[in-house]
């Protein structure tokens, strides 16, 4: 009797913990939604800011975030998948691979602001790209590289060895096996990782603080060497700079809603793909 009682208490405690966590998550989403939806309008989504950030829209920031995200993924995706293929399919098992794997893990753990510093010295100063979209994309690309590599690695390792052996036994070359068998099989896993990293890039602020972002631009960026506005940086700037805190906070709610919507949409798609795939493979 007493034992059952302690189990009831214990499980109740665990349940409370998870309930609080999930509730807070939904309160956050709901809160941003309710406050943000008031300022969202067609004008807000399609116009540039006006009157010292107190009126108009945030279209340049939305477009800027999309450019930065796309650029970063275009840079990191081929490099990351190739690195994962090398590590899983080609590299001899042993000390060197362990070192590489460990460096990648470490790269994933490096604080994002340190990537910002790196971007500043290497892309902005050393290569002379200046504070620009290009510097921002490359910095963000290096930030997500380890995430893409480890997601792709996991997906590749999940492909049964027997499938590779069967393909090789049929006379396919190593590369043919990878291209025709291993990659298609691991595609959903790789896709999940890539989509999750898109969400991550879109929300990152610290790496673009001093490599790409501008608080206010009149229009869209003209070339890869111009500064860009970005949603996450815009939220930060609205809350910490400027002379009209009241109106700026309202706009920040709108930006937060758009950013949250984009990021959660992307993550939901990724989670959905994963669950589908899981139920497919059992």
């Amino acid at each position, binding site marked *: 009797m007493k*034992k059952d009682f*302690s*189990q009831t208490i*214990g*499980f109740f405690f*665990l349940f409370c*913990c*998870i309930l609080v*966590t999930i509730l*807070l*998550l939904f309160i*956050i989403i709901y*809160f*941003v939604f309710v406050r943000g939806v008031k300022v969202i309008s067609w004008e807000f989504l399609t116009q540039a800011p006006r009157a010292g950030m107190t009126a108009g829209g945030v279209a340049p920031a939305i477009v800027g975030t999309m450019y930065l995200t796309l650029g970063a993924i275009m840079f990191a995706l081929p*490099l990351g998948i*190739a*690195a994962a*293929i*090398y590590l899983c399919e080609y590299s001899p098992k042993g000390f060197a691979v362990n070192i*590489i794997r*460990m*460096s*990648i*893990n470490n*790269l994933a*753990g*490096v*604080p*994002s*602001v*340190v*990537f*910002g*510093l*790196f971007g500043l*010295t*290497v892309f902005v100063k050393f290569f002379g790209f200046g504070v620009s979209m290009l510097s921002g994309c490359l910095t963000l690309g*290096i930030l997500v*590289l380890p995430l893409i590599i480890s997601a792709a690695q996991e997906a590749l390792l999940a492909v049964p060895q027997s499938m590779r052996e069967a393909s090789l036994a049929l006379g396919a*070359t*190593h*590369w043919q096996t990878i291209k025709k068998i291993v990659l298609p099989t691991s595609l959903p896993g790789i896709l999940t990782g890539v989509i999750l990293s898109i*969400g*991550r890039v879109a*929300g990152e*602020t610290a790496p673009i*603080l*001093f490599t790409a972002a501008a608080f206010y631009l009149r229009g869209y960026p003209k070339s890869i060497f111009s500064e860009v506005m970005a949603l*996450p*940086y815009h*939220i*930060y700037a609205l*809350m910490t700079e400027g002379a009209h805190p009241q109106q700026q906070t309202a706009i920040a709610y709108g930006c*937060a809603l758009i*950013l949250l919507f984009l*990021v959660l949409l*992307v*993550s*939901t798609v990724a*989670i959905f793909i994963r669950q589908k795939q899981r139920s497919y493979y059992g």
Partner: protein
Amino acid sequence: MRKFKEYIIEKLILASGLASIFFVIVIFLFLLKEGLAVFKIVTPANFLFGKNWYPISEPPQLGIFPLILGSLLVTLGAAIISVPIGIACAVYIAEVAPVRTKEILKASIELLAAIPSVVLGFIGMVTLVPWVKSIFKLPTGLTALSGSIMLAFMAMPTIVSIAEDALYSVPRSHKEGALALGATHWQTIYRVLLPAASSGILAAVMLGIGRVIGETMAVMMITGNAALMPHSFLQPVRTLTATIAAEMGEAVVGSEHYFALFAIGIVLFVISFAINITADLFLHRKR
């Protein structure tokens, strides 16, 4: 011809694999190059343990001890909140929840991980900060406590998902053995499963803490950014990451201030390196 094409592809793949390790080294080298210059002005000991951070006074005083303490204080607070709750969530998801609920809970935790830190910082600024101010009757709600609470949110998904993996990787036979001996499910969890998964859970906690120490935006927005020696949770503090992010924009390239910010970057890099290596060791000891 086909052989040649494959040869090229394989070399390209090899090059990409090596590029990623190259980046780690390059990042560190560039940080070193810019950061070590500061030690021409201050000794490493004075830099790490100096109590005054006045980078633009004449001469500049570059002691980052208050910033280190700020980071530690916020991290400690976040860990106190997120570690027990995170582990409890992991146990609930891994052991107690029915299959259907489990999938929903896991997805929710993943959504929590997806919320950008700047959004969490923003929400903290408009909700938590005023509450902290009025509850504790403080002159400002921008305190270490507010930062800890918000950062606990960010550490949680990491802790939950890694601790959950650790619980799953405990062999079934352990659990079945305990149950067969007449232990209740609850006894099995805290006498058998948790100890067996302890090294994985420790790794989860470490990686969660690593996430918190490296967090920048939320911390910069809600901890008040006063570079003073912190004495309590109800004071504004400034962390290492926030210092870099807040001051790099104003630092003159090539000045002592600029080099000092890179030196802080080195400190952060070393801390995250140490945390990751240790967590890696814990994770591998398990296998």
